[in-house]
Structure formats: C-alpha cells, structure tokens
C-alpha cells in the first residue's frame, strides 16, 4: 500500500468538473484507490463520482489518497499531481 497527503488548491474544490476529471484519472489505474480527509477515518472509492461528491471536499482541505495494487505508486503520484496543479483552473 502506498499513501500520500495533499491540500486542495482549486477554488471549487472536488466537485463538478474537477471531480469528473479526478475519477476519470483514477479509473486509468488498476489499483484499488481510496480517498478521504486526512483527519477523518472515512475513506471512499476514488473511482466513484457519487462517493467523491458525497465527501464534499472544498478548497484548503487536506486529503489522503492511498492505493493498493500493481500500479499503486504511479496512481497516487498522478492523482496528487492533478490536485496540486489545481485542475488547471
């Protein structure tokens, strides 16, 4: 298992277009990927748009992404990079 934390940079947070982009990116990997707030227990399937939306993560919040599987490192690093680029907003 491989895990990293990061902070949401873009203004609208993880919903609407950024959320769609996030899950589209997550789906490219074979690993099981989970996402949640760093300070909360609850982690959800990062490939599910509905679960991601239900978290309602906004700008400035800290999130943890962890993956398990053959491409876990690449998966986590790519998703963190996407968040850190602020979804090019």
């Amino acid at each position, binding site marked *: 298992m491989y895990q990293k934390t990061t902070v949401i940079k873009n*203004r*609208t*947070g993880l*919903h*609407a*277009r950024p959320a*769609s982009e996030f*899950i*589209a990116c997550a789906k490219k990997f074979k690993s099981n990927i989970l996402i949640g707030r760093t300070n909360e227990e609850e982690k*959800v*399937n990062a*490939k*599910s*748009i*509905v*679960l991601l*939306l*239900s978290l*309602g993560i*906004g700008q400035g919040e800290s999130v943890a992404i962890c993956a398990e599987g053959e491409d876990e490192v690449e998966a986590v690093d790519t998703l963190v990079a996407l968040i850190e680029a602020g979804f090019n*907003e």
Partner: protein
Amino acid sequence: MKYKGISISQGVAIGKVFLYRPYTFKPVEKKLGLGEYPEALQRYETARRNARAELEGICQKLKDQEKAAIFNAHIDILYDETIDEEIRDCITTGGYREDWAIYCVFEKYIHLLEKGKDQLIRERVTDLQDVKNRLLRCHAGVPDRDLGRLEHPVVIVTHDLMPSDTANLDQSKVLGLVTEIAGPTSHSAIIARSYGIPLLCVEGATELLEHGDFVIVDALAGELVVHPEKNTIDLYERKRMDWVAQREDLERYRWVRPVCTDGTGIKVELNLGSATPGELEGANYTDGAGLFRTEFLYMGRSQPPSEDEQYELYKKVLLQFGERPVTLRTLDIGGDKTVECLKLPKEQNPFLGKRALRLCFEEPKMFKTQLRAALRASAHGNLRIMFPMVASIDDIRKAKAFLRETQEELIAEQIPFATGLKIGIMIEIPAIAMMADCVVQEVDFASIGTNDLTQYSLAVDRMNPLVSGYYQSYHPALFRMIGIVAREFQKANKPLCVCGELAGDPLAAAVLIGLGIRELSMGISSVARIKKLICSLSREDAEKLARGVQELSTAEEVENYLKTALKKITD
C-alpha cells in the same frame, strides 16, 4: 369541445398536439421470483446501455462544451462503480426487481448528497435525479420525447416547460403552447413571448388531450377547441390570418423614427439579455442598447467567464450598434439564482442581500475582470458603464474608484480604451431615487429599473406568488418617485432612461414621457408598439397624463384613468 384557458402570449394556433409528458416512475416495492435474477440483471444492463446511448447522442449534438460537460458527468454517474455494485447486490442478494433496485440505490445517494453542507454538492442532486429518471424511463421502454427533434410543426401540450426542455427547442416547429401552469413571468411565458408563440394556460390540459389530437389554441379569447368541425377550422383560420396581419401592421412601426406629433424625439433602446443574433437584430431599428445585461455570461457554468471571452462578446455587441450607445450593466446577480461559478451562499432575503454591486465589491478580482473586459471593448464603440443595486452615494464612489483603478492598470499596461467613458447607475432602490439631486453630481447618466424599484418601494418580493397581488406596477408612488428623479436630471441636463417593464408598456410609457423621460429601453418585442404610441402622442398630451396621474391615489385608478385617457388621444 371547448375549454377555457388563460392567455399568456397572444395569438392563434391550429394544429396537432404533441403531448410532452416527462416520464415519472411510480415507486412500488417489487420482489423477484426464485431464480429470476439473471434476467433482471440483464434488463438492468440493457436499460443502462440504452441510457448511455441517449446521453452520448446528446453530447455529440451539443456544440456548447460547457453543456456537453454536464451530460458527460451524467455518463460518469450512470457508470458509477459504487452505484452499479449496490444495484446488482440489491437484485441478486436482496431479490428485488431491477427498477425498484435502481430507484432505491439512487434515492439513497440523492439523500446523502442533499444532506451535504456544501451548496455546490447539493446542486449535483439534480444530476442524480436526471440520471435516475433517464435510466428508469429507458427501463420502461418509454422513448425520450425530445422537443429538439420535432419533425412537423405542432402544438406542444405539457405541464410546464423547464429551461432544460427548451434548451434544444426548434421554435420554427412550435405552432402554439398549452401548459397547465404558467404565470406571466414563468419560463414558458418568457419563451413564448420572445418567439411570438401563442401560449394558453389550461387546467388539466395533459389529461384532457391526447398525443395527435387536432386542436385550435385561441390565445386571444382564451379558448382551446378540441376536434373542431371543418367550418370551425375555417373560422379560426380567418381569425389567425387577421391576427397575423394585425401584428405585421404593428411590425411596420419598428422601422419608424420615434417622434411625438409635436416633434419631440424619444430614444427607443433595446434591453439585451443574452446577445443572441435574434436580439442583436434589433440594433437595426433602435437608438442603442439601454440595458445590456451581463448575467447570462455567468450562468450554467463552473468557471466565471474570462476577460478575453467577455471582451470578445462586448466588442461584438458594440460593433453591432456602431455610434449608438451601449449601456453595459455590471454583474447583477444574487442568492435568488444558483450560479455554479460564484458559490453564492443561500440567504434568507436574497433580494436584500449580498447581490450585484455588493457581491462585486467582495469579489474584486471578478469585478475587475469584467471592468477590464468592458474598458478594452470600449475602444470599439460607444460604451457606457452602469452599476446596479446602488443604495448610497458611497456605493457610487466606491464603484467609480474600482473603475479608476482598473483604468490606471490598463494605462500602465499600455492597453487602449475609450476616453471620456460615461458612467451611470441603476435607480432601483427608493433611497437613491430620493437622493437624485446628489446622484446627478456623481454620474453622467442614470437608468430607472422599474421592476426592482416597484419591488423595493412596495416591499413585495416579485418572485413570491403569495404576494403577487401586491406588486402594483401602476402604484402612484412609483410615478411620483420617477417624477422626482426626472426633474433633477432635467435640471442638470443629463440623460435619464427607464429600462424596466414600464418602458415597454404603452400606458406607462406615455406617463414617463410626460414626466420628462426621453429614453426608453425595452425588450425587442415591445419596440413596435411603443414606437406606435410615441408617434400618436404629443408632448403636451403626455404631460397632461402625467399631471392626471399625480392626482390619483390608487393603482387601479391610475390604470383606469390611463386606459380611458389614452384611448381618447390615440383614436
């Protein structure tokens, strides 16, 4: 058979009914028989594939990237791993029928998102609802009766039209509209009036009529005739032709110069709401754009419009009007509307809240982006900038300071813009109307927004149907207040325009002219009738009407007086 109705948009339409009844699922718990689940799973798969095919078809047809993104998000939801897993589980382990399973799982997530603390997430609930409905409709094998794919001209019969219904509507295929509910300011009404489509509101219409029924929609007399006889059809066909001729006669007035019988010239200008080609066509026969609303640029998208996007649009409008002035109103929006890209908080009283200029002051980056775009565009025509929702002289000074700062930035960057730009405000809050003598020192022009002035003066929420009776456009207080403002602007010899509903209403427009207003700005559909009015009236007539109104004490008295007096003058 004849039914009574209420005319919302005038005219006569004769043709076949297109019954538009969005599919509704009746939720009833259903169990599968023993060993039936493989077929249930298959039916679920088929419904999902069909729904996906529909969505992909819509995406392909849409040219607008922003809109296509919405339907792409629907595909994401339709193929959501978690939802899919739970539906399958509900069918195989729970033994429920696939439609009940779909319904339950979607409802679960709809409730979950509804509870979210973030307004933007709560708005996604409508996307889940849409996907759920589409999937269940596909499951029931009910075709998507899409208003965008009408083959022959029809009379659309429906409960009420939603903006999503009319997004793809081909207006040339719509002879008439019959709805079950429709207030004068509903979406259906606005669409019908702006396209000149007759609209009749008939209770229970979707139950009374069948798809394919032959009907006559008489939105002049307020009647709906079903299965008419041959001679009845002929009778109404003549009525329809008369109406068309009458309208064409009125249309000729579009092209005349609006001058009163004594030679007093009135400027008739255009209100622009979306700068579509249909609206901009009005530039050919009006004296400018008295109100160029910019809200539409911010609606239905996840990101605010960029400086360049705004600049290109403003420039296009300015070029269309050439020498004639275009009055650009800066963003006028608040918590009564959901604007995805602005994250507006829900407020108890959005009309008294953080809206328009107040919102712009708190979002300086967004405000300046709009001002920069407007200033850059000003190099291409005759631009005037107008600030909405002004309550005090402080507001005016603060807005002007923003504009000055933006101008200095552009100068530093050596970006050209027009010098001597005219700056004005909307007069729509009673307090600022009463300060007209001070306002006139601060601005180059002003425009009276009568809809909001009415709402704020009479303390009536104009969106609230419970108090719609209290929204009195002809309340004498309004004419008194407009009179005060008009006097101050005349004294200072500065232009004053009226751009609300009253400007496009012949009864009120006559009084406005009498009060000294020389600029009226209105929607394209009112231009012809207001020009006709101006040409049949002298300044003295108008002033007499205005004096008459000042002596009356109720809205009803004003309306009756104007109807009688104006008829005498124009006949």
